């Protein structure tokens, strides 16, 4: 099988009719794990050493694009996979999809928290006004619509976990959390994509998609940025597959 077909299969799950053999699934292949590590090593070396365009206020901190922004990209992709598996569960009532959906959501939350934390560090060095006392400066930053929006989005996903784990019955839990997952995913769009763009903000990317716009990001940075997004996403998928496999094993043991 050509390698690109294998790459396409990474994003596919076996259909309910198909036999779910443990060896054919993407979770048990190692080539994309190798790809993830290779791309991350590339990101770390090129991201630190190569020249970046000289920008006012940001200066060398623009290198955070390879780390902070990638967290959000990976989070969005993992949440999308999670909601797709939630819908698959509702169509088939196969508990396997529920396990997959839950683990992708957890890893997405982890990446979201990392994105939030790194954003907090970055912003306190580039946005904070040195002429204001720290408290006033913080007051201005705390009103950032992007921060509030992402906080709401992440809290909704926290509620997903709380909701899940508070229901003892397995089928009921799977069904309710799959439906809630769709709502949570739908809420991502107003809270992190739409509303922050309607309000004045210090965060870049006000008039478009930050980092996706070809005119925004210099070509010398795109060469590192896109591989970085793929590398970080695959690392997230790797961590998730280990958790999914643990969940599937546990599930098998109980039956």
């Amino acid at each position: 099988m050509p390698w690109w077909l294998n790459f396409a299969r990474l994003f596919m799950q076996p259909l309910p009719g198909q036999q779910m053999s443990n060896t054919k699934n993407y979770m048990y292949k190692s080539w994309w794990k190798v790809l993830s590590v290779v791309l991350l090593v590339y990101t770390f070396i090129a991201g630190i050493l190569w020249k970046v365009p000289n920008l006012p206020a940001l200066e060398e901190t623009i290198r955070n694009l390879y780390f902070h922004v990638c967290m959000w990209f990976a989070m969005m992709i993992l949440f999308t996979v999670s909601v797709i598996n939630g819908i698959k569960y509702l169509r088939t009532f196969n508990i396997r999809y529920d396990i997959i959906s839950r683990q992708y959501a957890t890893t997405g939350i982890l990446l979201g928290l990392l994105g939030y934390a790194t954003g907090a560090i970055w912003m306190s060095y580039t946005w904070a006004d040195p002429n204001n006392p720290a408290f006033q400066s913080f007051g201005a930053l705390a009103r950032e619509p992007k921060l509030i929006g992402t906080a709401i989005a992440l809290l909704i996903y926290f509620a997903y976990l709380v909701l899940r784990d508070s229901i003892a019955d397995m089928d009921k839990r799977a069904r309710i959390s799959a439906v809630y997952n769709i709502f949570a995913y739908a809420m991502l769009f107003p809270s992190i994509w739409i509303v922050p763009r309607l309000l004045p903000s210090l965060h870049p990317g006000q008039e478009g998609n930050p980092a996706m716009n070809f005119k925004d990001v210099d070509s010398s940075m795109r060469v590192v940025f896109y591989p970085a997004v793929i590398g970080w996403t695959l690392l997230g998928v790797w961590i998730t597959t280990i958790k999914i496999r643990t969940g599937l094993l546990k599930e098998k043991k109980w039956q």
Partner: protein
Amino acid sequence: MKKFMKPFLLLLVSFFTIGRLAAQGAGSESAIGETMRSSGRIYVVVAVMLTILAGLVLYLIRLDRRISKLEKE
């Protein structure tokens, strides 16, 4: 496994060459960047970051192996 290594190496090499060309075109650099690179200290940061990455990846590989063993039982 070996079958897949070729496209990866190609991909990697192409990234590096394209990146080199792009970096040459980038032009001016900030003063901080120049100092960091000229003193050679920035390589220390790269080494530390790569060590942390290597540790995390090795841990993940170990977890992966362990769960594979459990699945076989």
